[in-house]
């Protein structure tokens, strides 16, 4: 850990110098509150706690995520500074007033010889606690009249914390993020496997960053991915197909694998165990059973048609139904297609609610055999609502004409319609609805002719 520490100091030198300057005179007063912000995994908590340990300063480190109530925070602070007996003196549901009173009492018995530090990690949670907790802690030094400093660590900038009527402004420090070239590669290379050379690992890290750096810069994620995929990287070396210097060959081996990892493990669609399992299997290009893969949802036959009909009802405007779903509709009149901005196309705005009657009408025209309107068909609609593939709009009491909305995406619908082995016409209808929605008005004429041709087939 110490070499990691020394590295970190080198990179964040200027910020650290300032922070250490502030803390460098422990027997004197320091600024009442300090706010440190920076991206995830930039080392904020680690560095601050290391400084505390190195300089041997009395500190209380509290993670605000754990503090469901402010009483837990008070308890932790008092027990860190004055021992568990002091914390036991707090009443059942301590208020801030009790905390300050007890603190004053304890500190008059044992005054601070060195500055006491209260470190609040993930301080953005404090905004959801008592409204007076944050402003009071920022000026704690003044309220308890003791040599104490509060350090807040967070990912979110200070402007989002400031209360309405203002508060005591802390000193702000930014912990910089890692640069690709030097720092990130260096840090990730510390995990290298002992049986391979560090240069090999460094080249592996460079390949990994080449794929993932433009997507994600979180050190923790990158480390996780590096650890998971290293064995696959070394496979050709172990099999004897390549030497350590054949970087190009190794790259060709690992790159498609990393691309697949981006779609599965990075998104947490599969667990790391499943991923490692899949690597050990010799079978090539097996598709992983991912969490949100809709390919393996099993729906009854008519439910699939109902869902497709629901999608068409949600995303096509009602006036186009005649054109699409009637077998013969006579002359096509040039209706006034309002000049729709691309932005207000339904595919961008979201699904619209539709009444049950419209759904059934589209369903009957879509389904390829004659279906009687029995209860089993209608009950499938309720099951689709329970599965959250459809959502009900409006109140439960409306038995007369319930309204629904389709909550699945186009990819899902296309996957379903493929498995239903429906005739080409259905796919055309879907494709057409896409085309209608995304094209601008000037192509209206050609669209009308295309649609009429389709229906005459």
């Amino acid at each position: 850990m110490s070499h990691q520490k020394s590295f970190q100091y080198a990179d964040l030198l200027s910020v650290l110098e300032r922070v250490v300057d502030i803390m460098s005179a422990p027997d004197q007063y320091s600024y009442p509150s300090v706010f440190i912000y920076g991206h995830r995994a930039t080392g904020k908590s680690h560095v601050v706690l290391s400084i505390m340990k190195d300089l041997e300063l009395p500190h209380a480190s509290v993670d605000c995520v754990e503090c469901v109530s402010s009483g837990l925070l008070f308890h932790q602070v008092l027990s860190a500074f004055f021992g568990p007996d002091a914390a036991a003196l707090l009443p059942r549901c301590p208020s801030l007033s009790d905390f300050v009173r007890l603190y004053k009492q304890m500190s008059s018995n044992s005054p601070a010889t060195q500055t006491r530090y209260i470190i609040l990690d993930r301080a953005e949670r404090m905004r959801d606690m008592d409204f007076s907790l944050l402003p009071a802690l920022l000026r704690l030094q003044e309220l308890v009249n003791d040599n104490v400093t509060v350090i807040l660590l967070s990912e979110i900038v200070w402007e989002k914390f400031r209360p309405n009527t203002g508060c005591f402004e802390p000193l702000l420090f930014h912990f910089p993020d890692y640069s690709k070239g030097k720092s990130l590669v260096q840090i990730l290379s510390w995990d290298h496997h002992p049986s391979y050379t560090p240069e090999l690992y460094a080249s592996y890290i460079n390949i990994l960053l080449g794929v993932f750096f433009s997507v994600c810069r979180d050190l923790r994620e990158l480390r996780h991915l590096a650890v998971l995929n290293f064995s696959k990287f070394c496979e050709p070396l172990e099999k004897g197909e390549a030497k350590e210097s054949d970087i190009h060959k190794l790259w060709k081996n690992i790159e498609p694998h990393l691309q697949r990892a981006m779609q599965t493990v990075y998104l947490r669609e599969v667990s790391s165990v499943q991923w490692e399992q899949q690597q050990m299997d010799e079978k090539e290009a097996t598709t992983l059973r991912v969490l949100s893969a809709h390919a393996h949802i099993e729906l009854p036959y008519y439910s699939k048609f109902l869902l497709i009909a629901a999608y068409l009802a949600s995303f096509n405007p009602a006036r186009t139904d005649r054109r699409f779903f009637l077998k013969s509709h006579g002359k096509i009149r040039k209706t006034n297609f309002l000049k729709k901005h691309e932005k207000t196309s339904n595919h961008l705005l979201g699904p619209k609610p539709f009444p049950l009657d419209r759904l059934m009408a589209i369903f009957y025209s879509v389904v390829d055999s004659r279906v009687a309107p029995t209860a089993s068909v209608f009950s499938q609609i309720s099951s689709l609502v329970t599965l959250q593939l459809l959502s009900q709009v409006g109140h439960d009491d409306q038995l007369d004409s319930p309204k629904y909305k389709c909550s699945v995406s186009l990819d899902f619908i296309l996957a379903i319609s493929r498995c239903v082995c429906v005739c080409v016409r259905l796919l055309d209808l879907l494709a057409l609805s896409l085309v209608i929605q995304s094209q601008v008005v000037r192509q209206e004429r050609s669209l009308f002719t295309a649609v009429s041709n389709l229906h005459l087939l």
Partner: protein
Amino acid sequence: VQDRCGCVLMMLCDGVCVQAQKLLRERLCHQKLPDQPVGLDSQYKHLLELLRRTAVHGESNSVLIVGPRGSGKTMLLGCVLRELMSLKEAQKNVLLVELNGLLQTDDKIALKEITRQLHLENVVGDKVFGSFAENLAFLLEALKKGDKSSSRPVLFVLDEFDLFAHHKNQTLLYNLLDVSQSAQTPVAVLGLTCRLDVLELLEKRVKSRFSHRQIHLFSSLSFAQYLDVVRAQLSLPPDFPDPKFSDEWNHSVTKLCEDKTVEEILRRNFNGSKDFRSLHSLLFLAVSRVSVSHSTLREADLIEAWRLISVDSKANVLHGLSILELCLIIAMKHLNDTYDGEPFNFQMVHNEFKKFIQRKSHSIHKFEKPVVMKAFEHLLQLELVRPVDSGVCKVQREYQLMRLMLEHGQVMEALQRYPQCPTDVKQWALSAFG
């Protein structure tokens, strides 16, 4: 011998430096009370006179001290109380009760605190009172018993006065002001608040019992006086143990204040806010650099301190985003420009991004929609993008309406500073309409 002298000098220097730091830190961090508040003479006199009348002559009073954050309300009160307590009659008699709106968030808690500060816990014991008024009356009556003829004057100091106005029925305020109006006990109610409209927060019955006496602390310093204040804050006092060091130090401080760049920095700070608190944070950052090895204040310290204070924190956050996240922000900026700031959803942003990928980009390859969604959610967590109505979740995630919390200028500036930004991304950002 010379070496030994050198070492001894270093040690002396060390000790003296440390003492200087200690003094300055007490002044800048701990807000130690100055001997005389600067530029607040009339307010000082007014307040002192008022409190003297309560303490010595037994007159009841109420006053509000109003001023923006950092203008010196607590400091003024502290100085006045210090002088008041130096009077012999006041010292013997006056009781001080200090309440703070942040700590005493409820009237019950406030009453317990009053009891405690008047040292009447034993007297109250386990008594149960019907109402707040009874309780307060009992406490004030108990103060009388000690001194048979008249009661001791009590000064109630209510910090963050506006927060007391949010309590239920404003009972504490009503009762305290009621006591100050009736002739039972000499009571002075002092409120300190940063809200100028504090009187509108009070209920009618409370407002009518208040004496409507307000002391306003609006800083009326000119820039020249401000510079004097800076010099005074940084100078060591004449009773500093090492006069040679303090002379050198004060001399360097005077020279520093005359320097052009330093004056520029102080002027910008003055234009931003005239209050002393922001000045103290700037000076503290500069003073904390002073150490044994570098024992005078230099202009580089102040320039560095100013840079730290005036940086835009969102720009810092944007610096650490990945390319994909930056592209999403540029897409959102384009949507804002095209549709005049109307809220958008993820589908629209993704659409813009796809257009960029298809038409103009060479360096960014096509990412799958879930990967783009994860990047978008990271931006949500950083609160660079916020949903328009945070409660409702009936809408699917992709269609929930959002707003970008960054301005056009901030995005463009961040792009300039972004390390190794691909040129096609920059071109896209600079182009007018996507």
